[in-house]
């Protein structure tokens, strides 16, 4: 069955940036239709369980992965209303000034087409709307910006134990900036620091799409349709005209939805996949891909976990999943470990609230233990565990990319294939960070210290922004080169990854793009 529909604006994806864009455009009076490929979700479906919470992860069409550091699509993506942000940890630091000028400054990586100053007012607007708990002045590395609207996350015993190690090495810590309420904020209740962020926060304390932007969008008249998979976008004479939508549960149900503006906010891998799968006579290599740039510069932060056991009790179950404290000591010097072959920035997220199990839980940190030795470790760790994670910048490489597979999904759309390997510089930076982290734990007096291997964290790039259509996919507002009413949102726009969590920056870019769209119209 084929149907025809129309809206002013179609937003593909209901995650952090899709819901944000929908809210801004609906508030301005636009008729907005949000299309979400995954199932309906609401706050009451966010069960507090490390086992049940896995249902929030990606379960759309399989993604093939290759390379020596795969991006981890299923772990790092969500599926369903609210998208990946439903399980995100809400660690919201800003990119630094030097993240925007990496190639000009250092001769490696890429430049952004905008500077920190261009983005600063949008960071400030977003943090006022969504609420961030933190200590701007204590965060001595932070670029200029408004103070945070809420007091910082409390420091529990785990945070105090690890902070002592930093201080022993004459290194500073500050409160971790979290988009989590430390006090009631704009009608939202305060967090009770029980560490269930990864399972999805049902009480409205964490700034996820179901709490912040989807209610705004719906109240302003936007429509949200779940189980609606966009398999192709239609472009004619340099203008996006419509999208072809399949009912995820019934591939025979196909709709063509026409619109004046199409916003693609389906997260990094699917953004590139949909552009590539929308090839036509007018765009034989896919949309925005005249110069073979779609899919390129795929990035993922390298996670650098450091663990320890302390003599004192650390109450590791308390706090937020993202952590309590922050260190960005070397952030502004991307050559700080050049003598070790490293390049880039990193930060430490310190004292993450820990559950006994799941991939980021206590048990997998010692994957070499089983039987009674594991039981004894778990009993001890439940009360004495400490952890921090380095967020390691991933150097953008042109050969790291999203491509189309030869295999197709049930809708006839080619699967995505993600090829990603970490550069030698990125791997060396991981090693340098791990060495530093272990020294911190030793200085903190941990009785046992160990570390984990590199893991993928966050997915960025693939449809990067730039001034030149030969080396990028969109302009700085996310408008696809040559198709100005096709606008991309999300971390797929990032030309560089920085060494900080991407969601806040993705929101700031979205706010800036929304303003541009509204002023242009």
């Amino acid at each position: 069955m084929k149907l025809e529909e129309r809206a002013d604006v179609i937003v593909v994806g209901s995650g952090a940036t899709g819901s944000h864009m929908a809210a801004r455009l609906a508030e301005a009076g636009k008729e907005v239709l949000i299309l979400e490929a995954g199932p309906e979700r609401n706050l009451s479906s966010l069960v507090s369980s490390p086992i049940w919470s896995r249902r929030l992860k990606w379960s759309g069409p399989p993604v093939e992965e290759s390379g020596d550091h795969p991006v981890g699509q299923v772990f790092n993506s969500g599926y369903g209303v609210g998208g990946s942000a439903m399980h995100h940890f809400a660690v919201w630091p800003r990119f630094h000034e030097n993240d925007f000028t990496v190639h000009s400054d250092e001769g490696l990586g890429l430049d952004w087409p905008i500077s920190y100053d261009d983005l600063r007012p949008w960071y400030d607007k977003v943090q006022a709307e969504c609420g961030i708990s933190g200590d701007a002045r204590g965060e001595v590395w932070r670029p200029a910006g408004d103070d945070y609207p809420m007091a910082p996350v409390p420091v529990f015993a785990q945070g105090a134990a690890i902070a002592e190690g930093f201080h022993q090495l004459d290194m500073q810590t500050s409160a971790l900036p979290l988009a989590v309420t430390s006090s009631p904020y704009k009608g939202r209740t305060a967090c009770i620091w029980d560490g269930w962020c990864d399972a999805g926060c049902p009480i409205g304390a964490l700034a996820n799409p179901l709490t912040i932007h989807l209610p705004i969008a719906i109240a302003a008249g936007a429509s949200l349709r779940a189980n609606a998979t966009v398999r192709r976008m239609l472009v004619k004479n340099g203008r996006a005209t419509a999208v072809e939508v399949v009912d995820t549960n019934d591939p025979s149900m196909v709709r063509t939805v026409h619109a004046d503006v199409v916003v693609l906010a389906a997260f990094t891998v699917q953004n590139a996949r949909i552009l590539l799968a929308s090839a036509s006579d007018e765009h034989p290599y896919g949309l925005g891909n005249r110069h073979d740039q779609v899919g390129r510069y795929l990035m993922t932060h390298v996670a650098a976990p450091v663990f320890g056991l302390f003599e004192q009790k650390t109450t590791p179950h308390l706090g937020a999943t993202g952590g309590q404290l922050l260190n960005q000591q070397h952030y502004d010097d991307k050559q700080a470990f050049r003598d070790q072959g490293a390049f880039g920035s990193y930060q430490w997220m310190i004292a993450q609230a820990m559950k006994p199990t799941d991939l980021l839980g206590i048990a997998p940190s010692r994957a070499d233990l089983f039987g009674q030795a594991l039981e004894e470790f778990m009993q001890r760790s439940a009360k004495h565990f400490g952890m921090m994670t380095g967020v390691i910048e991933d150097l953008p490489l042109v050969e790291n990319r999203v491509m189309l597979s030869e295999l197709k999904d049930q809708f006839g759309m080619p699967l995505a294939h993600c090829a990603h390997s970490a550069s030698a510089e990125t791997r060396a930076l991981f090693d340098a960070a791990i060495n530093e982290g272990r020294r911190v734990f030793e200085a903190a007096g941990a009785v046992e210290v160990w570390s984990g291997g590199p893991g993928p964290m966050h997915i960025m790039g693939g449809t990067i922004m730039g001034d030149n259509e030969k080396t990028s996919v969109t302009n700085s507002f996310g408008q696809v080169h040559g198709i100005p009413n096709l606008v991309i949102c999300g971390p797929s726009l990032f030309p560089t990854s920085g060494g900080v969590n991407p969601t806040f920056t993705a929101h700031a870019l979205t706010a800036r793009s929304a303003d541009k769209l509204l002023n242009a119209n």
Partner: protein
Amino acid sequence: MTPGQAHDLGLTPRALTKQEIQGLTVLGNALVPGAGDAGLGLYIDAQLVAPAGDSMLMVRYLGVNPPFDDFYRKALASLDAWSIQKFAKSLAELYPESAAQLVRALMKGEIEDWSGPPQGFFFFVIRNDACDVKYGTKEGFDHLGVPYMAHIEPPTPWGNP
């Protein structure tokens, strides 16, 4: 739900055989004391028949695409064959000391004539499955003395067995 409770309710495995469930019980108890008795086999069986989006298995985000039946069944068959060759008993019949020996061999990749996922990877996954069943539930948190503090209690420990 423990195997005993499942038996009392007349529940039968849906994706795995009874022999495989029993093998997982022995393997689970060797990996994490009490994990087999807590229902490792029934947990995996329940997840294998669930729609892919509802699966709670950790393997779903470790680079393995569904369905996961072969991932488990091939590995269990290899473990069973090695057990018979080494101990003249099936995996389901192993004594705890022999089961511990089998787990050590699996961890080191020393199970001969192996088919299925790489041994070290299977060890990682099945050990974490056992941890889920033993430590990942409210009862498991209580066992470790960790306050559960649920916003929304899971209706069952791991879905509908």
